[in-house]
């Protein structure tokens, strides 16, 4: 029989909170974490707003030597992993060889890359810090988490831009089903607030320029949306074999019932016509979980607040579930308050979706006022809504045409 996979721990550091409970509270209340950018001087950028992690000092978590030798993106992954691991109660209850780590990032250590590139240009290549490579590479967060937690099982990074941590969770569940681990820390992290990080997305004209009103700048599905808001953070869940979790009496947040992964094979940044690739990912995710569209109650959308994403994702949802069902269910984008955490987005949204199932409350698309033409689903505008939920989908899409959908199920016992 197919193994059942459950979420038994959660951790996140985000623009709306340094830990999961605070982030969930703010997401439900629709309190935006977007402000004027401070980590880089935004003066030259058309987009001057960002979802930065606030009141963050790495020394609150790491000793000075470790703090200096880890990129910000790695620190976020470590902090989220610690929270998730402590939350799971797995310490001492799992053999380290059976505990894995799959933590991705869209970009990796771009802060470190930029700093050392400057050193090389200004002072010569001999002055490049010997820690440069092992700080910058996009798999080092996973490696550091392995060391920090003492997880000696499978360990690698998924790199699919804004779908990175969605893939991490989907693959982790499959790995446990295959028997390659009993539990896996799965998620992602991102720290893109640098000159080239922000400058690059600005050059693509991907970012919102609503600089005079940061808190409503991320407006998924709204007619006045004008791009996504760059954000940072880390999010990690503990996925565990249900049997293993039950044997140790673990608290269970939700069940990861299935996943679907596809590629648009169409364009490097634009979604395929009508969200064709994303629609297939949703269909596969439902099939994998053994459910039909009628059983889906809620979709946590990718919902980036770009012109192209929101309209195509809406079409994709209709294509995957059928127009009538699509209009009946609830769809919301928590990026309306977090901004777009890129490689951490899929995992933090999986956490929010799990909490929605567990608590019976749907987080809102907080900033949505006037739905755009063609955006005609129930996006739960403004306020959170109480509702009994059983199944939910969570979508993540990444540059490269990567699509991943997770099917989450309320945990209702064995």
């Amino acid at each position, binding site marked *: 029989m197919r193994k059942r996979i459950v979420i038994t721990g959660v951790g996140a550091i985000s623009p709306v909170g340094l830990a999961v409970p605070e982030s969930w509270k703010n997401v439900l209340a629709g309190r935006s974490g977007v402000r004027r950018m401070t980590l880089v001087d935004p003066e030259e950028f058309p987009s001057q707003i960002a979802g930065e992690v606030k009141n963050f000092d790495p020394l609150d978590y790491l000793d000075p030597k470790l703090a200096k030798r880890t990129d910000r993106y790695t620190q976020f992954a470590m902090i989220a992993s610690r929270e998730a691991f402590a939350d799971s109660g797995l310490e001492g209850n799992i053999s380290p060889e059976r505990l894995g780590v799959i933590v991705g990032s869209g970009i990796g250590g771009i802060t470190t890359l930029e700093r050392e590139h400057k050193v090389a240009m200004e002072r010569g290549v001999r*002055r490049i*810090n*010997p*820690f440069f490579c092992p700080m910058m590479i996009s798999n080092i967060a996973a490696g550091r988490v392995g060391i920090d937690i003492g997880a000696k099982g499978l360990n690698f990074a998924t790199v699919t831009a804004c779908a990175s941590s969605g893939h991490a969770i989907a693959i982790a569940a499959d790995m446990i089903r295959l028997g390659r681990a009993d539990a896996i820390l799965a998620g992602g992290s991102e720290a893109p607030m640098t000159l080239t990080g922000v400058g690059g997305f600005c050059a693509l004209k991907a970012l919102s320029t609503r600089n005079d009103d940061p808190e409503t700048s991320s407006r998924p599905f709204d007619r006045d949306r004008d791009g996504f808001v760059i954000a940072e953070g880390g999010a990690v869940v503990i996925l565990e074999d249900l049997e293993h979790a039950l044997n140790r009496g673990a608290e269970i947040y939700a069940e990861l019932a299935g996943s679907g992964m596809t590629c648009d094979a169409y364009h490097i940044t634009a979604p395929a016509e009508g969200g064709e690739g994303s629609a297939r990912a949703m269909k596969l995710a439902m099939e994998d979980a053994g459910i039909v569209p009628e059983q889906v109650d809620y979709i946590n959308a990718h919902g980036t607040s770009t012109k192209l994403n929101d309209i195509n994702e809406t079409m994709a949802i209709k294509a995957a579930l059928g127009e009538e069902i699509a209009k009946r269910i609830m769809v919301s984008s928590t990026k309306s308050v977090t901004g777009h955490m890129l490689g951490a987005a899929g995992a933090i949204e999986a956490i929010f979706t799990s909490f929605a199932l567990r608590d019976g409350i749907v987080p809102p698309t907080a900033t949505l006022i006037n739905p755009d033409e063609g955006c005609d689903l129930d996006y739960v505008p403004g306020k959170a809504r109480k509702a009994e939920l059983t199944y939910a989908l969570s979508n993540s899409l990444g540059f490269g045409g990567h699509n991943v959908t997770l099917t989450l199920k309320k945990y209702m016992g064995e």
Partner: protein
Amino acid sequence: MSLENRVAEIIIDKLGVKPEQVTPEAQFDTDLGADSIDQYELIMGFEDAFGLRIDEDEATKLTTVGKVVNYLKEKGLD
């Protein structure tokens, strides 16, 4: 500041060790917990601070705090 103190300051900063650990006899690897990458970074720190270039052959011999101080004194620093 004396040469000894300047060297100690760099070591404390790069390795995150306590001042009292930085004795002349202290070995970078066994006593101060520096792995090979830490030691490369330390050598670069000395090069930057004292404006000299330490060849790799020489660098591998600088295994204790005292040896670094003596090396720098031989190079005419004080």
